[in-house]
């Protein structure tokens, strides 16, 4: 089976000759949830930027559904939705208009858009914010808008960067429920988070990044074997793997 996301020998960063990421390999299969974990500055966001095409690989290749961005840009971009760590909204648009704009950008039919948007607005308790502008929302509400925009599309691949910060407990619950629901339908997830106790319950596999290099990967059991720590939690494993040479 072809993986949805395939990262091969990726080296890249912001300056030529000074790669932040070095020789990164990983895949995300259909219906799989991969947890990308690492300290601040480990290269998680840089990895995501490469996948989104905001940075160009210095070496290696990234494929979504078997194609690189250069080969089939529209198919590549249609296949993934992104929830950024810090919400970025258009000042000129209301919350409802953000959803509408996203639906337009990805070519969603109007009836599909309406039923999905209605359900998401209910689920995240944002119905009364439909006509509000982004400037009048709290950080958590902006984050909800980002999440709704991504789930509106029901893409093959979700890329979610630190989604839990600022969300209220009900919204966290809704988000996790949605993730499980979409995963069951075959969607794939790449999730970055520092809330290890939460993602431990949801991810199938993990990739531990440290200073731009993958230091461990696999299922929880794989990593327990690699770290020689049977029965350890993800939190313990992470500490064992990276704290040895933490800055």
């Amino acid at each position, binding site marked *: 089976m072809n993986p949805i996301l395939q990262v091969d020998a990726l080296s890249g960063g912001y300056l030529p000759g000074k790669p932040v990421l070095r020789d990164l390999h990983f895949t995300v299969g259909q219906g799989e949830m991969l947890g990308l974990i690492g300290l601040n500055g480990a290269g998680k966001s840089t990895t995501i930027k490469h996948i*989104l*095409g*905001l940075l160009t690989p210095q070496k290696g290749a990234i494929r979504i559904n078997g194609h690189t961005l250069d080969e089939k*840009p*529209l*198919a*590549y*971009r*249609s296949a993934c939705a*992104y929830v950024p760590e810090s919400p*970025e909204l*258009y*000042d*000129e*648009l209301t919350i409802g*208009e953000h959803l*509408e*704009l996203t*639906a*337009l*950008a*990805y*070519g969603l*039919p*109007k009836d599909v*858009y309406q039923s999905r948007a209605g359900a998401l607005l209910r689920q995240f308790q944002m119905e009364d914010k439909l006509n509000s*502008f982004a*400037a009048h929302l709290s950080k958590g509400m902006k984050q909800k808008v980002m999440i709704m925009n991504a789930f509106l599309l029901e893409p093959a691949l979700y890329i979610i960067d630190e989604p839990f910060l600022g969300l209220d407990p009900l919204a966290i619950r809704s988000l996790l429920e949605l993730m499980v629901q979409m995963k069951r339908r075959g969607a794939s997830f790449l999730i970055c988070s520092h809330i290890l106790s939460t993602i431990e319950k949801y991810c199938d596999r993990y990739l531990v990044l440290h200073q731009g290099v993958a230091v461990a990967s696999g299922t929880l059991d794989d990593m327990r074997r690699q770290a020689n720590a049977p029965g350890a939690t993800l939190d313990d494993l992470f500490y064992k793997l990276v704290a040895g040479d933490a800055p």
Partner: protein
Amino acid sequence: MKMSDPHTAPPAAQPGFDARALWRTRFAAYRQEALGYLQYAARSNFFLLLAFLAIVSSYYYAKSLQRLPTNYPYWWIAVALLAPVLAHSPIRTLLRPADRAFLLPASQRLGPYFRSGLIYSGTLQALVTTLALVALWPLYRHCAGPAAQPFGLLLPLLLVLKAANLLGAWHETRLAYQRARAGSALYRWLAAVAALLLLFLSSPLAASAAALLFTLGWLAAVRRAAALQIGWDHLLARERQQQARLYAFFSWFVDVPQLPARIVRRRWISGITRLLPFRQDAFYAYLYGKTLLRTELLGICLRLTLLGALAVAALSSEAARFAAFLITPLITAVQLGALNQAHRYTFWLQTYPLDRSAKPGAVARIVWLALLAQTAALTVPLLLTSGAPALWAPPVSLAASALLCGVHFRRKFRQDG
């Protein structure tokens, strides 16, 4: 004014913290930035224009005084001029949002900082008060005649009232509730009007006595109101507002990057994007259409259209009307060229599965539609004022707009990206 007393203050978090030095640094940075922008204002001959206006208006002022009967009820002009000068007492604090976190531990030691802010604001406002009295003086002397009080008595009295208002405004920022702040401000305005009425209709003595009573009444009322040690939220909001106003003024002369874009909902027109089909190829029209409709660009368009329509309606020569009709869309088009720059820093536009080469054409089409609407609006006064020959103007304008947007803007926007 009650400010923290350094002698009774508990030991602050930072032993070496010097509030006065902080003010000096902040003020130096503020002054440097303001002077930089003022240079642009000077370069545009703004001050020459001001001086010219001052000379012209003082000429007409003197001329109209000659014709004005001495029993003219000048007092309403005096009150209308001086009441805002006295009661409106904004305080520049030069605070920054991060101060709420970083200066909070030093709250007890910030007295000298805020005192410096009060002195700066007070000095400026004293200057304005003096200028207002100087401007009023000829009218006052003309109407009050021999009963006029000496300048040397009125100015100090007004300055004392100004100082009382400023201190009142400072205490107002510490009041915990918006309702209390608004109540206090309203009280100050009414008190200023009453004191000024007494000053010009009765005597300086009556005005002083009333002002003293008003102050005592205010003190008694405000003692019971819940007050914070420093009203951080309110001070920061006011500071942001004042700085934004200053930037808005500077933006007449030069592009001010710090100025946040002002977004207006404009319910009456922004729903027009509903006419777009719900399709992928309507994306750019939707985003940039909404952007035009909700930003200052539409405000500029509307003002230019109004100005153009007035010119077309009022100009007496046919050729001048024709020129105004054609020049207005041209100026508007130059302004609307900025629409293509909107959202240039949004990474979202790079992540959508869209053909980006469609953007220049879509933005140019929006500009074209705006020019079309403007031409239609200008045609109304043209039809009302002009004869058959002027009917050439609308088709010429339409052709020029189509050429400008369809060829020039498309090419330019493609190059700009």
